């Protein structure tokens, strides 16, 4: 906080996060939720709001919502119901959004965020509620034509969203980012959401204001809701910008929360500024009332317990376990955990199969991840299975293959055949016999007397250059074996 020398200033941030649930179909109809289809191809009378069509709740969305609630320590009330939130907009074909007003599916919870800096303690951020609702469609305004021409794509309309509302417990943009990171990690790890901001499956609105102490008086600046932030980085920048703007504005006008109601500002990534979207939020009257087309849902404690039992490890627990069980560093464990559950279990299969967690970890961080990124592969699409990859790494650990040779085998396995042994055979990697190796080494030593001399004078690394030469003459020669043979021969010379 740059202004703390003049007045004591505290930044107050609350986040509203919309998470798109990973269901195959929409919240109240059977239409696909797949991203990126041609406009208005994933629609039916229900999500188009046609006369006479009726909603039916998607049971999977309920399950995922409970899962999400449990992941952020929410209590799950025994009954939840549906309310209509009414307003007119072209991307809302029914003229109302089916949402939850007074009985959300998830009540009161919290999320622990890791310490932002070394001297910060871990912080507990309160969560007010999480409620389930249907998404609206997408309006595309073609302002360039000058005709106010608008097009509407209703593919997204009816997609299940869980809106997670935090208390205003966050105190800096860093904390906001840490909260979002942790939330995203849990939602992706537990298969609740993809949390892709670019695809709109995670959206963030931030409520920001300042608490100041000036001349011994406590003052709060008017609350601003920031929208349109398309990355976590943008959230951080927008909050920082807004903190400075509000401070300057307060110095200029002295306006406090009592004198001005909440305003809505958009974030412009290119200018790096927030801009006014809606002045004085006229307390919009959504005329909420219980949706008579849907029945309230009762959720038994047994059901909640059942879902809790399937949660498995939370990311924090996995992080701990990977470090202990596979003896890898915290940073490496974090990279693996961030890739999600499938990746973690792939890693663990390989680590177990080769019995060398560190080696598996380094291969996963480099070769496996790079391949996945380059070829846009998911874990399930990966051409080599865990057992075979484990076998390959085991051969490296045992010295049967060196790293570079192992990479050749890996590449071959990726494009041809996932079997280690047949790959080794196809590449003509045959183990070199002792006689052959000794002959090769003998020849090298004879033509490099200087190296023999250096070694005898205590420069043990001198034989290193011969290993390279040996590999050139016979690519199958194992460097470790070459080194051992060379030393043995020198000693008996």
């Amino acid at each position: 906080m740059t202004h703390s020398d003049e007045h004591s200033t505290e930044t107050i941030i609350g986040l509203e996060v919309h998470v798109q649930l990973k269901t195959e179909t929409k919240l109240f109809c059977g239409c696909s939720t797949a991203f990126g289809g041609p406009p208005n191809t994933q629609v039916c009378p229900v999500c188009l709001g046609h006369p006479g069509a009726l909603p039916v709740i998607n049971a999977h969305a309920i399950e995922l919502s409970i899962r999400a609630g449990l992941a952020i320590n929410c209590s799950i009330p025994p009954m939840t119901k549906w309310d209509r939130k009414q307003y007119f907009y072209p991307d809302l074909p029914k003229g109302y959004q089916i949402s939850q007003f007074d009985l959300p599916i998830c009540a009161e919870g919290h999320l622990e965020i890791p310490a932002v800096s070394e001297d910060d303690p871990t912080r507990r951020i309160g969560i007010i509620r999480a409620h389930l609702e249907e998404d609206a469609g997408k309006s595309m305004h073609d302002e360039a034509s000058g005709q106010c021409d608008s097009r509407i794509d209703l593919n997204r309309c009816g997609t299940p969203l869980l809106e997670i509302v935090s208390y205003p417990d966050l105190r800096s943009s860093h904390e906001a980012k840490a909260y979002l990171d942790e939330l995203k990690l849990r939602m992706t790890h537990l298969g609740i959401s993809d949390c892709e901001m670019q695809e709109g499956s995670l959206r963030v609105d931030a409520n920001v204001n300042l608490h100041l102490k000036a001349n011994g008086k406590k003052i709060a600046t008017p609350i601003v809701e920031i929208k349109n932030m398309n990355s976590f980085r943008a959230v951080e920048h927008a909050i920082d910008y807004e903190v400075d703007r509000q401070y300057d504005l307060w110095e200029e006008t002295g306006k406090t929360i009592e004198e001005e109601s909440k305003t809505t500002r958009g974030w412009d990534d290119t200018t790096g500024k927030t801009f006014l979207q809606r002045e004085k939020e006229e307390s919009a009257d959504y005329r909420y009332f219980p949706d008579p087309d849907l029945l309230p849902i009762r959720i038994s404690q047994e059901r909640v317990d059942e879902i809790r039992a399937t949660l498995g490890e939370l990311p924090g627990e996995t992080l701990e376990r990977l470090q202990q069980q596979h003896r890898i560093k915290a940073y490496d464990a974090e990279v693996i955990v961030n890739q999600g559950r499938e990746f973690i279990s792939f890693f663990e299969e390989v680590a177990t199969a080769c019995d060398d967690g560190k080696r598996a970890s380094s291969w996963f961080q480099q070769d496996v991840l790079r391949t996945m990124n380059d070829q846009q592969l998911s874990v399930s699409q990966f051409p080599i299975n865990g057992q075979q990859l484990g076998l390959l790494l085991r051969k490296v650990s045992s010295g049967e293959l060196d790293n570079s040779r192992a990479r050749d085998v890996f590449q071959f396995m990726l494009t041809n055949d996932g079997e280690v042994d047949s790959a080794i055979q196809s590449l003509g990697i045959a183990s070199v016999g002792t006689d052959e190796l000794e002959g090769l080494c003998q020849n090298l030593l004879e033509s490099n007397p200087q190296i023999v001399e250096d070694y005898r004078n205590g420069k043990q690394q001198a034989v290193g250059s011969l290993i390279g030469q040996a590999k050139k003459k016979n690519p199958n020669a194992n460097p470790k074996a070459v080194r051992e043979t060379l030393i043995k021969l020198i000693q008996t010379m």
Partner: protein
Amino acid sequence: MLDSASEILRLQASGEASAVEIIKRSIEQIEASQDKINAYTCVNAELAIRDAETVDVKRKSGQPLGKLAGVPVAVKDILCTTDMPTTCSSKMLENFMAPYDATVVRRLREEDAILVGKTNMDEFAMGGSTETSAFGVTRNPWDNNRTPGGSSGGAAACVASGTVPLSLGSDTGGSIRQPAAFCGVTGLKPTYGRVSRYGLVAFASSLDQVGPIAWSVEDVAVLTDVISGFEPRDSTSLNQEPPCLSSVLQSNDLRGLKIGILEDALNSEGIEPSIRQSVIDAAETFKQAGAEIVEIQLPHSEHYVPTYYVIAPSEASSNLSRYDGAHYGHRSAKVDGDLLASLGPLAATYCKSRSEGFGTEVKRRIMIGTYALSEGYADQYYNQALKVRRLIKSDYDAAFSQVDLLLGPTTPTTAFPLGERLDNPLQMYLVDLFTVGANLAGIPAISLPAGLNSSGLPIGIQLQAPALQESRLIFAGSAYQAMTDFHKLRPDNFSF
């Protein structure tokens, strides 16, 4: 012939008439009466005859036939059909073609019924006289200067004018039973959830229910059997096997049945004396069949209509938000001037499209409902009405702990002259006095023809039963019709 589904089925089975002959007869009868009665918003002669040919071919080749094979049926224009427009008698949906069939329509087609047309109604089912239709009033076949009732006025008049033996209406506050009473036919509102609302254009979702209209309880039972049952696409549809109503038809033995006669309704102000007398006579008939008759009260009955006129418009104001001109239905061609300047292009288009597309009564109810749900007023109106609705349910629970059925009038008066109440909404709302209770409580109720008054206008009596007990209504109703001939009375000038 066109006044009995069972007769039509018999004629076809015996080879005395083909489905095509029957449908042609129905079409002729529609053509002969439409100018005078205007029961239909759409008649689909060509398709109906083609469908009838299919039935005849099926019959000749010995293929299995549905329960209503070759029977002409009309459906209220609030039920979605893929082959005829679904207008709700509103300019808003004047040319709207639904992309799917309502569940009840699908079930009719599955039983080989022939859909001959869609029937006129009050706009979006809001009204009690079919006078708020954007496509002209429907006239009562018994007296063409009077209303057939509403909102399913066309659905009752199309049966009473001998064009079809069966029709489907919808009942939100009495919209099947009241026109059935005014037109001298039988009409049933099933238990809420018994018949799926999928494809029934919503007026007030927690009250709406599709139901049959026919001359006799027997035909009503057959049609109810066809349309009832669970629909997974409708969350409020009851997931349980409905009983076969056609198999509970009774002759005249009602021993062991206890019927409560609603004394307060009989003594209410403004009830036509002939209607009062008909209810008393009906009680006597039931007594003769061995039923026990006791007097009974519904203590909160004075609150039923006010409660209904808060809840129904509230839900309607929300349900009708979708008609904004953006996606389908009427959109105002040109928005300009002050409206554009003051609201901007989007809100101005909404405003003008809705102003042009909706009629006065619909606008009135949207306004009432929007107000009742508004912040600061919801507790006073909508939430208060929900509380009273719970009291109403307990009224019925208490009554049904003492008796098996409730007997009373369907309406306070017989059919009133066209135009009489159009400018007096409060007077119009009173036609629902005895019918809204069943909707608010979600229970089944039937209106039975009970004779004519001195002006020759039909009178209806109402039986109400506990939830899911349609069979009791059919049981007692069929006994009543076995012992009386009121359901056999026909208006003049119609050949049946």
